[in-house]
């Protein structure tokens, strides 16, 4: 029972810390949200500025702003965006939906592709094909995402005319959405795959030299059975960690890909909120990302236990 209380307290403390940091970080940035809202060439009197500040709740002392923020959170109210003129929860709902769809698919495909190819490449690293694939993925992981996205757009959309330049769709049908998302998903899948490939490859190279792999071979198991039934299971532990970390990426979007393909995702939402000092949007976005990462880490712990019997064993 005391263990449950301890854990509950620990999670509550973590949550409070996250919430506090979410509140503090946007306010530590230089700049004034009110001036930002007014714009560069517009003259408004100090009285109007103060009225706006009051409307936005920014005239209150920080302590009061913080308690108001906590109060709103307890009522599941994430606030109201200064620039988007909409409740933050609605904005997030819209953006997260699309972001999960295109970043989520990319992360999943990238994990599967990178893990399988990485495992095979690590198992037989000396073959020419595997070396070539390895160089390819190293090159990919070193390429700036912005550049790769532009390159893909130039080749596949402009030169070959196979795909569109921007947006989630022209006509809101599933086929059209898939057609529009093919290029951004491919670019992001390649990035995700390259990271997973390199980690899996290294992990398999390390694992295949272990005694249990040697023992499996001595038992007369085939290579594929040793790799996929024994080695891969142990080698995939870092991939699980990476996947958990990618959940944060999943919710924070992929800014550069969104910019190149003009997609309305979480990346541009957060970027615009930083530029515009839109505190409620920043607070809401960071909270969702932090909670998603927490949840993903909890799931990763669970998966670790499934993949590795040593984790299940009491110390």
């Amino acid at each position, binding site marked *: 029972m005391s263990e449950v209380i301890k854990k509950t307290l620990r999670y509550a403390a973590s949550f409070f810390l996250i919430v506090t940091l979410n509140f503090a970080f946007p306010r530590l940035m230089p700049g004034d949200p009110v001036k930002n809202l007014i714009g560069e060439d517009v003259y408004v009197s100090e009285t109007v500025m103060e009225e706006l500040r009051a409307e936005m709740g920014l005239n209150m002392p920080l302590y009061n702003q913080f308690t108001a923020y906590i109060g709103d959170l307890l009522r599941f109210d994430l606030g109201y965006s200064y620039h*988007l003129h909409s409740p933050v929860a609605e904005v997030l709902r819209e953006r997260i939906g699309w972001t999960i769809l295109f970043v989520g698919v990319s992360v999943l495909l990238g994990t599967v592709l990178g893990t399988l190819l990485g495992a095979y490449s690590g198992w037989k690293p000396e073959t020419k094909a595997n070396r070539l694939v390895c160089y390819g993925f190293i090159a990919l992981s070193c390429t700036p995402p912005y550049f790769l996205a532009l390159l893909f757009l130039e080749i596949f959309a402009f030169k070959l005319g196979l795909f569109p330049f921007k947006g989630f769709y022209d006509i809101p049908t599933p086929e059209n959405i898939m057609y529009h998302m093919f290029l951004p998903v491919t670019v992001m899948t390649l990035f995700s795959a390259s990271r997973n490939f390199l980690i899996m490859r290294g992990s398999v190279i390390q694992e295949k030299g272990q005694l249990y792999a040697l023992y499996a071979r001595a038992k007369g198991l085939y290579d594929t059975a040793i790799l996929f039934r024994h080695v891969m299971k142990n080698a995939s532990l870092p991939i699980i960690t990476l996947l958990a970390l990618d959940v944060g990426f999943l919710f924070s979007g992929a800014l550069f890909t969104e910019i190149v393909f003009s997609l309305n995702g979480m990346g541009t939402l957060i970027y615009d909120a930083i530029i515009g000092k839109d505190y409620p949007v920043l607070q809401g976005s960071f909270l969702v990302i932090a909670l998603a990462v927490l949840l993903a880490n909890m799931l990763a712990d669970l998966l670790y236990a499934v993949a590795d019997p040593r984790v299940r064993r009491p110390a």
Partner: protein
Amino acid sequence: MKQGKHFTESGFNRGLKRWLTFAVLIFIFCANMYPAGAAEHEASGENLTPSKEGIFDRVITYIKVLLGEEEKLQDSRTRSEESASDMEQSTDTEGVALKIATPSVIKSASFLGDSSLGVFAHLSNPPLMKIDSEGHLAGQLAESYEVSENNTCWTFYLKDDLYWSDGEPVTPEDIEFSIRYYGKETPSARWINDTLESSAVSDANNSVTFRFNKPYTRIDLEFATYNILPAHVWKSIDNPMEYLNEGPYVGCGPYYLKQIDFNAGKLVFEINPYWKGKAPESETVEVHFYSNVDVATLALKNGDVDTYYKYAGSYPYSSIEQLEKTGDFDFLEKTDIGLIFLAPNLKRAPFSDPEFRETLAYTINYEEIARLETQGYGEVPNRGFVPPSMEAFKETEKLEYNPEKARELLEKAGYSDSNGNGVLEGKDGKDFKLEILIRPEYARTGELLKEYLEQVGLAADLRTVDSDTWFTLKDSYEYDLTVTRSTPWGMLMHASWGSGYFDSRRTGQGVMHNLDDPEFLQLCDNILATTDPAELQDYAYELQDYYAENLPAIPLYWSNVVTPYNRHFEGWYTDPLYGIYNLDTFVNVKKKSA
């Protein structure tokens, strides 16, 4: 051994529990996903037989349900079909659609709250006044206007052939309502609320009169920026800033705003069936958002869009050659009324001294800076600051690069390099070092300026800061020199001709508010006190002479706004405030006959 068995069993139980948890989670996921798909079918009236839809559709539906859109499902399917059919229709009539690429991405469907949407909506809800291609103010919805002698009472006579896209006529009440509505609801127009004493409409002569509590001479210019709204639609909307609608909006221009589609990244304007003016050729006008200008260039080259528009900006000079090579584009070129300038801190010595500013002006190699920054699409500016495309431009002396003269003037002023270290010492005998405050977008200009200053022995430090820090430092006058720009509206605001940037009585993010010379302030007041065109011109000339003599800011170059357009179209107009985005363009642009 016994203990080992215990461990194994414990591990087995824990494993089993975890697998069970997983199974339950997967079950919940699937259980949620299936009804989600089913709900959509039910809502759309389809049979609930086993679905032929793929997992992808089911996942989309699931996400919609997860995101709390169950209640919208019924509508969304219908809307989606309608939208798809509209879009297909739009594709069918592609031959008569004018497509514009823009980097000014709309962030919100708030008609009054999003500034970029406000600019694009000039097409559907044109302002009362406009600036013509020569830079003169002219009526747009207004046929004519008059102002009382004391400049407090403005009467606008409306054109009588204006209709909203729902068939209702545009009335003086609409104008009165719109202006009062902006004054009440939008912070940037709060001045209207504060100064508008009364207003009256006259249906007999189709006019609206605004009476202000003090003389106001720039109302005709101010009213060239406020979109006119249909009173019969907007009066029922209590909080217009929070009113989000992705279209259609009732408009009275040649087009009305049919749809704002963030996920497709475009605005669609459709022809106003009740428009009685010159009939535009294009059935639709589409504004396509590109977050990246390079991608917009590819889309232009590919023929996906016909032209490019950015408020207060040119098509990137570095990409012009790419478009020229295709042979498919012509270019409109006009000197921008906005410009890049070097702003000395007039509140700090020695920059407060006009003679020192004169010396600084001689250190700058204007030709080089114009060539590098505008790639041939700019020119050396005059001392009078105001670019030639602005109304009442006065030809003043060109700024001159003369480092020898700068050295000479510095020496005369008591700056000398007595220790031979290449850096001039000030009157206190210490090395004179100045700081150039720079935002990242002016990094290269900053580097060039530093180099020019060092060539005459003035040591300079570049301090690059983000925009917010720049605003803070600029507002607290913590800089020696800084580089910034004026926008077209910025040049027109306040007493016009760029005065709004320098008048110390003003505030604002982009303005320097650092000039409190009584002569300058009096000039501003004089301009603000008259509506007489001849007097205004005289004051404008005086103001440019003042700039030329005192150099409160040193213009670095005048640049051209370059707008590429597909050669298949002709009939483009450009005005100094909104470039090609004006009604004259949209009613005149047409496909060239082969």
